[in-house]
């Protein structure tokens, strides 16, 4: 792999940019691999990357039904934060946020991590108390957040209306080193680094079956033939239920569509991410100037990747009171992704009833921010059979009643 650098740009500028190579190879699958990861989204690619980087396991295939990063990795609102309430969540999300800080250097690929700050608005007295509690919990967890008053919110976000009639802004939970990153670049950067380590990224190859012998996975059936493996990692987000069905076990997961939308591009007006969880909306401004808006999840199971129309209206209507200026904006595009929701709104990074099969799913509405930490933990679990970061997120927790309840702290908006 040729490294990207200022010298590379200068060199290519002198030869009509004819020397850039493809970022990753597109090989045909081999007969067998040490590890097969199903799903070349952010989490799957990050798992493969840390398997190679941290554990030297490079005989790896990453199999993808569509194109890499074409699922939820390319459909989210790119928010990165780690201000969670429960200790296991704070640990893994903060690990991810911390890895994002230097991810561009690690991958030699600009993921445009922008720690511009994330504010979660408190718009009811209940939320004020909730976020003050989160701020205290974060202090104990070593996650730097602070609770700020409404005037400070107004100072940071001049376009906000803090005196709304229904939901005035009473304060906010600020994480200064939270922010955004370029979602496609995260997938592309990991893919390029994986390919460089000799891993095979096999796109447009759908897994159609999981071959099992005596409680072990021996390989997968795909649309490009049968492939053997010693270990299998299932990292397919919304389709986790479908893969689990192939592998013969059940999951405490339901899939539904979550939507986002962007406005026409406008001049810079908001340089932080603002989340308004009471009214179910969150907003940031992209580098192109579009206001990126995330909304609610469909209330019923579906795999439509578009979502119900009325959610757009509800989301925008909710945000207009807090951001009156967006009432004049035209919305350009809307899209949906399939999110895999668990009962306690926390992910599953776990062993499965099959001895050499591991699953990483249940990130629900908030997976993008966790990509590096999730990959780190999943790789450790697959390589060593144990990961301190992943331990609490095992699927057994539902049977044992030790939930990691983030349904309040994480809210609908991630």
């Amino acid at each position, binding site marked *: 792999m040729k490294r990207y650098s200022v010298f590379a740009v200068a060199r290519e500028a002198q030869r009509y940019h004819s020397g850039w190579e493809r970022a990753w190879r597109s090989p045909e699958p081999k007969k067998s691999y040490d590890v097969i990861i199903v799903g070349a989204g952010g989490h799957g690619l990050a798992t493969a990357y840390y398997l190679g980087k941290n554990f030297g396991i490079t005989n790896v295939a990453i199999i993808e039904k569509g194109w890499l990063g074409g699922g939820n990795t390319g459909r989210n609102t790119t928010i990165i934060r780690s201000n969670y309430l429960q200790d296991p969540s704070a640990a893994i999300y903060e690990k991810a946020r911390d890895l994002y800080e230097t991810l561009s250097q690690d991958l030699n690929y600009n993921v445009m991590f922008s720690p511009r700050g994330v504010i979660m608005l408190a718009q009811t007295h209940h939320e004020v108390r909730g976020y003050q509690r989160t701020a205290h919990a974060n202090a104990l967890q070593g996650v730097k957040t602070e609770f700020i008053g409404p005037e400070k919110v107004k100072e940071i976000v001049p376009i906000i209306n803090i005196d709304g009639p229904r939901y005035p802004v009473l304060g906010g939970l600020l994480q200064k080193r939270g922010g955004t990153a370029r979602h496609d670049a995260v997938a592309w950067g990991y893919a390029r680094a994986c390919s460089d380590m000799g891993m095979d990224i096999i796109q447009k190859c759908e897994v159609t079956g999981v071959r099992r012998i005596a409680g072990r996975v021996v390989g997968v059936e795909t649309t490009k033939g049968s492939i053997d493996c010693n270990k299998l990692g299932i990292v397919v987000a919304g389709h986790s239920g479908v893969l689990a069905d192939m592998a013969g076990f059940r999951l405490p997961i339901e899939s539904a569509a979550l939507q986002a939308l962007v406005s026409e591009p406008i001049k810079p007006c908001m340089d932080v991410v603002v989340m308004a969880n009471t009214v179910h909306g969150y907003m940031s401004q992209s580098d192109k100037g579009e206001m990126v808006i995330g909304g609610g999840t469909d*209330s*019923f199971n579906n795999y439509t990747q578009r979502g119900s129309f009325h959610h757009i209206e509800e989301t925008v209507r909710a945000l207009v009171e807090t951001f009156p200026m967006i009432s004049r904006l035209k919305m350009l595009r809307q899209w949906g992704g399939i999110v895999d929701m668990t009962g306690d709104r926390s992910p599953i990074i776990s062993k499965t009833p099959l001895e050499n099969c591991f699953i990483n799913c249940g990130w629900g509405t908030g997976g993008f921010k966790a990509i590096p930490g999730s990959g780190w933990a999943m790789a450790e679990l697959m390589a060593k059979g144990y990961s301190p970061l992943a331990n609490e997120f095992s699927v057994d927790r539902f*049977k044992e009643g030790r939930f990691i309840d983030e349904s309040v702290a994480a809210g609908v908006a991630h």
Partner: protein
Amino acid sequence: MLTLQCPYCGVMAEETELSAGGEAHLKRFGPGSTDADFETYMFMRENPKGVHFERWRHANGCGKWFHAARCTVTLEVFGTYTAQTSVPPADLLDKIRAARPGFKWREFE
């Protein structure tokens, strides 16, 4: 937008008039049951990519709970039926089997 016919009042209700109630025909387990049974009842879900049986409530209408058979990919509705049953009606299952070869949902094929 998803539209379901309420089997009680006959109204063709659209999504905002309804509230989703999750998977249908769950077998309930209470105190004294095994951990595995309780886990299955509380948390394990079918989550099919295809036809699903669900509970719905005509919340902004007659207020009654009912069942629906719906495809989670195309949103095609195969039918709705009343809440006073623990299994889907036989004629509805036949209709789904005819339309979707290979249909499978819990113990039904």
